């Protein structure tokens, strides 16, 4: 038990930041991202003994996180993320420096993407190798490259559109 706790702590410390960023990119708000982080790592904790080292542990956790994200918003019927981002921007204008404003625009743009695309692009932004993203998302590497190219174009277009407003 003590070993499990030690191992879990190590895994949590190494991966939680990236997983939180993924969840934040997907939901656009801190509370939901925290819920998703908690759900992801609860699954990791409960199933740690089932992990068989067939893939990297980070890939395994990413896969759990992606599934968690995809089912979470559907079952919770949460407020649409773009509305949330709008609220964040309207409620705290004084806190937004130019940099923060750009970051907020980025999240707003990500929110406009399809759910699966949102998760794929956050992994691309985090510079995960393509073969890992393919494994996590269950898409062949060839198809993934095409898809990522399309998502990058779409995201850049959305970002520029928002930046002009």
């Amino acid at each position, binding site marked *: 038990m003590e070993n499990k706790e030690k191992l879990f702590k190590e895994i949590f410390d190494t991966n939680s*930041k990236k997983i939180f960023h993924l969840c*934040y990119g997907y939901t656009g708000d801190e509370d939901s991202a925290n819920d998703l982080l908690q759900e992801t790592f609860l699954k990791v*904790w*409960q199933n740690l003994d089932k992990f068989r080292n067939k893939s990297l542990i980070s890939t395994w956790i990413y896969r759990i996180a992606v599934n*968690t994200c995809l089912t*979470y918003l559907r079952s919770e019927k949460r407020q649409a993320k773009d509305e949330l981002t709008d609220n964040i921007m309207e409620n705290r204008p004084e806190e937004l420096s130019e940099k923060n404003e750009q970051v907020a625009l980025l999240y707003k743009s990500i929110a406009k993407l399809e759910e699966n695309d949102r998760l794929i692009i956050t992994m691309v932004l*985090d510079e995960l190798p393509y073969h890992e993203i393919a494994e996590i998302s269950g898409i062949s590497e060839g198809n993934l490259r095409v898809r990522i190219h399309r998502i990058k174009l779409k995201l*850049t277009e959305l*970002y520029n559109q928002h930046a002009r407003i």
Partner: protein
Amino acid sequence: MQEFDHIQSLWQSHSIEVKISSDEMLAQSKKEVAGMRAKSRLNILGMIVSFATLAALLLFAEFESWTTLAGLSIIVVLVGIYTFILYKDHKLIAENDFTEHPKAFLDQLKAYQLNKFTIYNKLYWLYMAALSVGVIFYFYEKLNLLSPFMQITLILFTIIWMTLCATVFRKAYLKGEKERISLLIEKFERISTQFKESN
């Protein structure tokens, strides 16, 4: 016109801090269930206090009529049985921990929700009917000692209080509990089933 590289550097420069540790995270997940357990314990404690007070009254007070004794006995037995049922129900959520035994805990949480529904529906009406008989017997002697005004006031108060408990309070409690437990079940089910999908 910004390029994707700019977007990527923006993403990477946005540092996000995880505010909880692994221990806190596990503790947080137990907290929701702990709240439910505490409420259930408080409920049982209230019933035990009522039982003890009524039992003390039954043992140490003097009554002239057998009806008072019968009425109070019915109420004491009733409160005792209901407390025992609540305790048995409480044991369902007190024995397991979701972080250690997810499947067993989930099954017991579902059983707990089902029991709660029975306790505050079918069983509640039986409880109320028996309680009314007990109260009527108890009042038979006791009301004779009061003035007519006090008699009417006490009867009216008892009727209104019991009606409120059986309708407004019971429904509100049941609704709140149902929502709370359903949310927990939904969350724990999501955690359990998603993992199977992700493997």
